[in-house]
């Protein structure tokens, strides 16, 4: 006898961020040739004895998580300058440090602060960039991440992806009940905020291109439904609740359409919904499973998973529909694609000999490269600067997240203190 539980635990809350990281990030494979940099603890002027945030530590952690930088440990700092005048460049040259960051955090009254920083080229003894930001207490960490982005871009020539967020789903067992939570945290694992909690599965979080909204699948009514939710206000709309599957939502780059999977016509097919009118355009017509649509960054085509050839492989179709072109040929299982932000690569779940790993297909050369070595890796999501891919993996009996650089050389693991975490989706860099 089966009792159907109708009590749905549902919270729509944006909790205040705590001072603790929800996700603990640990670098599991370092990179040779990382650039040495000294980030000096920021000076503090204010009413309290200690600064409200350790800005230098946030920047240092960001830069080391990128794999491109090797910040000097605090114990190796030969001096603690907080202004340009205090910097003795020859001391730092002797340590073979290429670059140096100094800064100050000042309280300006009424809960406001200013952060200023300068980045120096140690060998030329010259300032590369310097900025000052007025900032509220709530935005201290975000401004620190923004400073990391500025430093990263100045020194690598590529945009940073530190001032971004990650959406993910956690599960926990409370007695016989399982609880599912959709959260958004800063890219360093701090400031986790609950988007939705339910005792039925939550799946497939997807960011809008402006980073302001998130779409997801919820089974809170014991059937699959797609919702979109405003991240700041938590206001949400039920977008699709057709008979059967309502899954795999993906926003078009212009924010006007949502690609999704529906089985209302008998089996899973890809549709494109106009978000203003909710009119549906069916893109595939095939007896196979067609699912997991993703838009190319130019908005012209959609890549999806289909087993029309007998096993799941990736196909590409024009955003308006038409003939599908098969993209993957290596291996018996390629599914769950994500486009790189420049549209040149696809990350996917690549199954071979019973192991499921994250691989990247170069769309120009057709070369497929396996980047991970797990058994059950899934849900790859590119960072908005295209340098890293975050994905879900297992360790022991726990589900954790991991990130790998696109060249496969640098890896890190993101785990919860307790419970499982899955389905990471890296936010776009816009929407700051």
């Amino acid at each position, binding site marked *: 006898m089966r009792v159907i539980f109708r009590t749905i635990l549902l919270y729509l809350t944006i909790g205040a961020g705590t001072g603790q990281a929800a996700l603990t990030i640990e670098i599991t494979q370092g990179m040779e040739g990382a650039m040495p940099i000294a980030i000096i603890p920021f000076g503090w002027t204010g009413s309290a004895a200690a600064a409200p945030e350790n800005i230098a530590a946030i920047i240092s952690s960001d830069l080391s998580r990128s794999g491109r930088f090797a910040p000097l440990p605090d114990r190796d700092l030969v001096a603690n300058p907080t202004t340009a005048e205090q910097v003795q460049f020859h001391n730092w040259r002797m340590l073979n440090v290429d670059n140096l960051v100094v800064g100050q955090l000042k309280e300006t009254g009424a809960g406001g602060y200013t952060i200023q920083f300068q980045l120096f080229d140690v060998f030329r003894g010259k300032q590369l960039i310097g900025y000052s930001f007025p900032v509220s207490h709530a935005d201290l960490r975000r401004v620190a991440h923004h400073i990391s982005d500025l430093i990263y871009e100045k020194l690598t020539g590529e945009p940073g992806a530190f001032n971004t967020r990650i959406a993910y789903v956690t599960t926990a067992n409370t007695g016989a009940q399982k609880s599912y939570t959709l959260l958004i945290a800063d890219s360093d694992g701090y400031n986790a905020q609950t988007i939705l909690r339910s005792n039925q599965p939550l799946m497939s979080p997807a960011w809008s291109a402006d980073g302001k909204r998130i779409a997801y699948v919820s089974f809170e009514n014991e059937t699959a439904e797609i919702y979109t939710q405003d991240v700041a206000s938590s206001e949400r709309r039920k977008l699709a609740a057709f008979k059967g599957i309502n899954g795999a939502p993906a926003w078009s780059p212009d924010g006007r359409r949502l690609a999704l999977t529906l089985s209302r016509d008998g089996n*899973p097919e890809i549709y494109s919904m106009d978000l203003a009118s909710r009119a549906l355009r069916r893109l595939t017509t095939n007896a196979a*499973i067609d*699912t997991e649509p993703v838009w190319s960054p130019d908005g012209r085509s959609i890549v999806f998973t289909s087993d029309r050839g007998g096993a799941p492989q990736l196909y590409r179709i024009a955003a308006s529909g038409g003939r599908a072109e098969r993209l993957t040929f290596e291996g018996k299982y390629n599914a769950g694609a994500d486009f790189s932000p420049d549209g040149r690569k696809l990350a996917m779940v690549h199954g071979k000999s019973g192991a499921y790993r994250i691989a990247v297909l170069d769309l120009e050369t057709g070369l497929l490269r396996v980047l991970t070595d797990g058994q059950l890796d899934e849900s790859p999501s590119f960072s908005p600067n295209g340098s890293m891919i975050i994905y879900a993996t297992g360790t022991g009996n726990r589900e954790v997240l991991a990130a790998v650089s696109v060249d496969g050389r640098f890896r890190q693991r993101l785990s919860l203190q307790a419970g499982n975490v899955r389905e990471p989706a890296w936010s776009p860099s816009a929407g700051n």
Partner: protein
Amino acid sequence: MKYQLNGLFAVLLVGILAGCSTTGDKAAVGDAAVEDRGTTAVTSGVGAAGSFAGYSLDDPASPLSRRVIYFEFDSSNVSAADQDLLASHATYLAGNSGQMVTLEGHADESGSREYNIGLGDRRAQAVRRILELQGVAPQQVNTVSYGEEKPAAEGHSDAAWRLNRRVEIVYIGR
């Protein structure tokens, strides 16, 4: 075919088994059922005696108490033995047109999550087709695919995965 009961016979059999001191074994149930097939004229009578019909659903010795169908890797083929089991459910449902079922399709954890939703759906649809071919009305059957989101067995072994590739037949309100 072996386990195909019509509603009336299931009711009678429950009575017989309940009265027996020896435990009912499924083979006996099946054999007896085959002999009595063809008494389709009485199925409407069973519908009328709806209060009895509950018995066979709740009786652990009845094939109707088996409500999970298992599948091979990446497959939605229903085995011959499970075809027989589904025939029992179909007969019951055809005779109880007010009874609704939800077919919950599930997949193991290998591969990507939304593709697994597709696989669970395909399995649920395969079971639905078998039920409908045997006289169950389409409006009696609802399907939902949970993909890999609600495993029956935790763990990453083949044994756990075998238990997770399944369709659960959920009788609504029972």
